[in-house]
């Protein structure tokens, strides 16, 4: 485990629902992000920020992951936008880029929550 990864995730580990055990599970977790644009970029960026250990993502997004964590295990995934990519984005939002960004952060949030015993 790199010291940088431990330091980077301290503010998240401090959440009582994460803690040592939740953060250890995130370090060991793997995720897959498909598609392109701001949605996929933000999903990758937040997942790597959260300390995820293995990530499958389109090659074009690997540099974003490496800029944050040069120890994350990367593999390729499809750059084709998945169906229902914008599910869960509230109707009140109108700007396409803002909606895409929301969807990407939501994708990362759901993966992080799935690694925790007791998400709030």
């Amino acid at each position, binding site marked *: 485990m790199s010291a940088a990864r431990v330091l980077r995730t301290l503010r998240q580990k401090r959440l009582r629902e*994460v803690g040592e055990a939740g953060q250890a599970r995130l370090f060991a977790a793997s995720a897959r992000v498909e598609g392109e644009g701001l949605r996929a970029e933000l999903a990758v960026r937040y997942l790597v920020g959260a*300390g995820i250990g293995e990530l499958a993502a389109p090659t074009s997004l690997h540099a974003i992951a490496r800029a944050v964590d040069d120890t994350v295990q990367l593999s390729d995934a499809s750059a084709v936008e998945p169906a229902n990519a914008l599910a869960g984005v509230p109707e009140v939002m*109108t*700007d396409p880029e803002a909606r895409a960004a929301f969807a990407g952060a939501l994708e990362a*949030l759901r993966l992080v929550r799935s690694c925790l015993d007791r998400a709030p």
Partner: protein
Amino acid sequence: MTPARGTILLVGLGGIGAPAAMILARSGLTGTLRVCDDDVVDVLNLHRQILFGQADVGRPKIEPAERLARPGLTVDARAVRATPETIDELLLGVDVVVDGSDNFATKFLVADAAGLANVAAITAAAVEWRGTVFSATGRGGPCYRCLFEDVPSGPTPACADVGVMGPLVGLVGALAADAALRHLRGQGVGGELLSVSPAGAVRRHVVGARTDCALCGTTPRITRLVRAHYTQGLGASVGS
């Protein structure tokens, strides 16, 4: 989608400001994106402040923002902290301000200065697993003080103490950027309060103006910026 046109000020390039800046730059916004932050990147920021990578640690936060400029969009990046002394100049020519600062004193300062200057203000905050985005149109109420009245006097939760979930902050940044763009497109709603749950669900309420509001009420007590109003509670954080 009508291209948004105008000048947006983004206060703070933290967990909220970083995704908001990226969205605003890519939205087709024509005009100026002014950003202000006097901080440098810390490794502890990296999980949620997505404009930055390892190579930026120790560098000014405004540097990566300068690279967001596009044809038709000027980025005016200032290594300045929003204070009673600097806020009026920061707001010059601004159509809408997005506050992504990390403490209540700055949030009230920006909301008051915007209200006094008739500038629309989007106030965004996140800590732990929750966040809120409030919109004021800058043409009378409802305003941030109609909802929250004043700077809290006691201790409030700070990211450093209780932690913050990175992707949750991203949801708040996206909602704030969208609210600012809706305002520029003539679709902004004064008094709109969006709250984000720990699972990422968004609820919308529209808050009414209060006739006794200190800023936008019938007999306002705040008619200019007085430094003492924005020092109490400093260090009281609402996330970044």
